[in-house]
């Protein structure tokens, strides 16, 4: 317990001057009540002492009767979470922006502002993050009393196209429909000749309003809704939700069920990384590699289909356990599939580290130093490729990662090549862990009984999705429906790095830099904005941009890597 307690103890000492009250709801959590005027100084104290990173900001509306709202600032380090609880009045909720201290806070704050109507003072960009541009003024979807039927009646869609492009800028708009990334987002890159000088992203095309919808569904129904946040990492969303709800209910899941959860999560990681590998290779102009990796990905899709019956939304989890067992024949199928994949992964490793043409697109491109990665709050393989040791499976083992540990894979170069290598190495380790699970799978039940109503309380659940840390905040008020579920997916934290990395690079490198962080917009749909500058503009399609990238490197003198 000392590892859990000491950072929290340290934080308690740091926050002494501003702390109005504190509470330790779970051994690895500390809730600190802070007045809104002290927020900046308290966050500053954590930042100057390098205590953790800002993981998410959750808003809570306590309703008209209580007349109060709360903003929760969650800071994480290792297995512990520190939460600032800032109480606000419902009539005039105001907090100050943490942007000056923690630049990555801006996206969380913009979300808080538009969803709850909490005014964030001194925020550099107060525009809509997730909601549409034609959203009515003064309507805040996550406040109590918001009625979606009423909104649908009064909603006036604005079908005219808006451009906020400044004249005298050379801007290349991309999306929301573009053939490369299979998700709708709108990017604008400002360029000076070949060099990118500014970038901005408009997200929210895939914002569906799931957090609000969870409040209208029962605990069991939500499992199926949350699984459909993302079609790529569906299992991990359901796992994070189940872990949180089980923690609230005080239910322990049987060991065999936990092992199966981990097994499916790791199989999902293989499918997700291979999917990314193919798409990233496509962005780099290497379509053969794209086709090969997607062919090999079908191996793991077959395995998932055989054990769960579905290719994409496996629906492995139920509250209190899992739905299906793994038979001995299935174990054999999985093992032979893994043998094939191991062989292919070694081949791919050869390709990404030795192929001359490929290395020209990746080595030394999009370099993010350790300090930058830390400051921008990147997560998952993107952070690990820059030498930041951040992996929830190792730092705060959940489910069965204590019994079947997985080593942390870290690369130090921080360029695109490192991001390829780190993911491929991770897959080799994943394969070993899956074999380990298959060899020593505990016997026993697949699920335990869960109550229909969950005890009142709040909990935080953090898991390692294929793209990085996934953060769930779950609040129950003792009924059969949750009071609030907050989801913070890893792409949010990684998108900040894309815009920063893009600036100063060749235009031709942008598609592959963008793909390098493995963005997943349906998961979270958020934004970053940087001011464009320069003169004159022209429109290129994504395809033209990609073609330009390919041509640029074909015409460039081939430099052989040593």
């Amino acid at each position, binding site marked *: 317990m000392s590892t859990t307690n000491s950072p929290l103890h340290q934080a308690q000492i740091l926050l002494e001057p501003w702390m109005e009250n504190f509470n330790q709801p779970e051994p690895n959590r500390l809730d600190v009540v802070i007045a809104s005027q002290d927020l900046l100084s308290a966050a500053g104290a954590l930042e100057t002492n390098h205590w953790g990173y800002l993981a998410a900001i959750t808003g809570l509306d306590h309703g008209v009767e209580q007349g109060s709202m709360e903003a929760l600032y969650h800071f994480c380090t290792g297995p512990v979470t520190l939460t600032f609880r800032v109480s606000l009045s419902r009539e005039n909720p105001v907090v100050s922006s943490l942007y000056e201290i923690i630049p990555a806070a801006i996206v969380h704050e913009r979300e808080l502002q538009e969803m709850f109507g909490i005014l964030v003072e001194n925020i550099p960009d107060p525009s809509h993050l997730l909601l549409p541009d034609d959203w009515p003024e003064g309507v805040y979807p996550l406040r109590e009393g918001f009625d979606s039927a009423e909104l649908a009646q009064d909603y006036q869609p604005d079908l005219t196209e808006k451009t906020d492009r400044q004249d005298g800028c050379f801007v290349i708009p991309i999306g929301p429909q573009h053939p490369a990334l299979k998700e709708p987002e709108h990017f604008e890159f400002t360029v000076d000749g070949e060099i990118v000088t500014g970038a901005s992203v408009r997200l929210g095309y895939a914002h569906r309003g799931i957090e609000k919808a969870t409040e209208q569904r029962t605990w069991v129904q939500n499992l199926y809704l949350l699984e459909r946040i993302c079609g790529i990492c569906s299992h991990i969303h359901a796992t994070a939700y189940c872990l949180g709800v089980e923690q609230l209910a005080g239910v322990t899941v049987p060991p065999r069920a936990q092992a199966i959860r981990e097994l499916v999560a790791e199989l999902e990681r293989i499918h997700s990384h291979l999917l990314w590998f193919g798409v990233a290779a496509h962005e780099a102009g290497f379509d053969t590699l*794209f086709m090969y990796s997607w062919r090999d990905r079908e191996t793991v899709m077959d395995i998932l289909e055989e054990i769960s019956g579905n290719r994409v939304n496996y629906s492995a989890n139920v509250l209190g356990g899992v739905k299906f067992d793994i038979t001995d024949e299935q174990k054999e199928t999985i093992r032979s599939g893994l043998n094939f994949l191991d062989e292919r992964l070694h081949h791919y490793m050869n390709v990404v580290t030795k192929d001359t043409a490929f290395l020209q697109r990746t080595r030394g491109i999009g370099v993010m130093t350790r300090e930058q990665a830390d400051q921008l709050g990147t997560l998952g393989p993107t952070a690990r490729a820059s030498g930041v040791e951040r992996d929830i499976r190792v730092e705060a083992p959940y489910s069965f990662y204590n019994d079947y540990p997985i080593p942390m894979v870290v690369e130090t170069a921080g360029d695109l090549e490192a991001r390829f290598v780190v993911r491929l190495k991770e897959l080799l380790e994943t394969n070993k862990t899956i074999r380990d699970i298959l060899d020593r799978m505990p016997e026993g039940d697949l699920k335990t009984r869960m109550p229909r109503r969950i005890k009142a309380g709040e909990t935080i659940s953090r898991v390692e999705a294929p793209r990085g840390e996934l953060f769930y905040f779950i609040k129950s008020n003792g009924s059969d429906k949750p009071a609030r579920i907050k989801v913070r997916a890893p792409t949010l934290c990684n998108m900040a790095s894309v815009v920063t990395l893009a600036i100063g690079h060749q235009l031709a490198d942008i598609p592959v830099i963008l793909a390098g962080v493995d963005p997943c917009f349906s998961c979270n749909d958020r934004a970053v904005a940087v001011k464009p500058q320069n003169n004159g503009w022209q429109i290129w399609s994504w395809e033209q941009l990609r073609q330009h990238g390919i041509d640029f490197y074909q015409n460039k003198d081939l430099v052989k890597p040593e």
Partner: protein
Amino acid sequence: MGIDLQNTIMDRIATWARINSPWAIHFNSGSCNGCDIEILATLTPRYDLERLGVKLQGSPRHADVLICTGAVTRQSFSRLQRIYEQMPDPKFVVAVGSCALSGGVFQGCYNCTGGIANCIPVDAYIPGCPPRPEAIIDGIVKLLHSLREGPDSTTESQAETENRRFA
């Protein structure tokens, strides 16, 4: 579909060409990605949609078929209409996945308008969450079949299905 594809000899030639090689464009109107990765999987070696002449196209101006997923969020509503308007006639829309059909699991969410058909006319529906690649291929083949046989014959008889399978 509104347009007679078999009227003149030139129409017939154009329709014959279109059926043999329809160019498709893909748009995600706020789906969870599940359908989108399955659409992408149909283009890769295991399923290989290109053997039926289907080519995924980047620009709406070159496309015959709009393959569309998702429950149409408010933000993408006008974009979807604009993409549809940019496509040259005759054009066909395939809605893929439960959300694209009816809003699916996201029904009642404040930012979803619920289904592609609320936004643009749809010619073929492929249900599933997400549909398997085989189902997507089958849906597209059925669409092509209806082009050949005229707008009224959207479903083929069992015998025709068997014929096609073994042709």
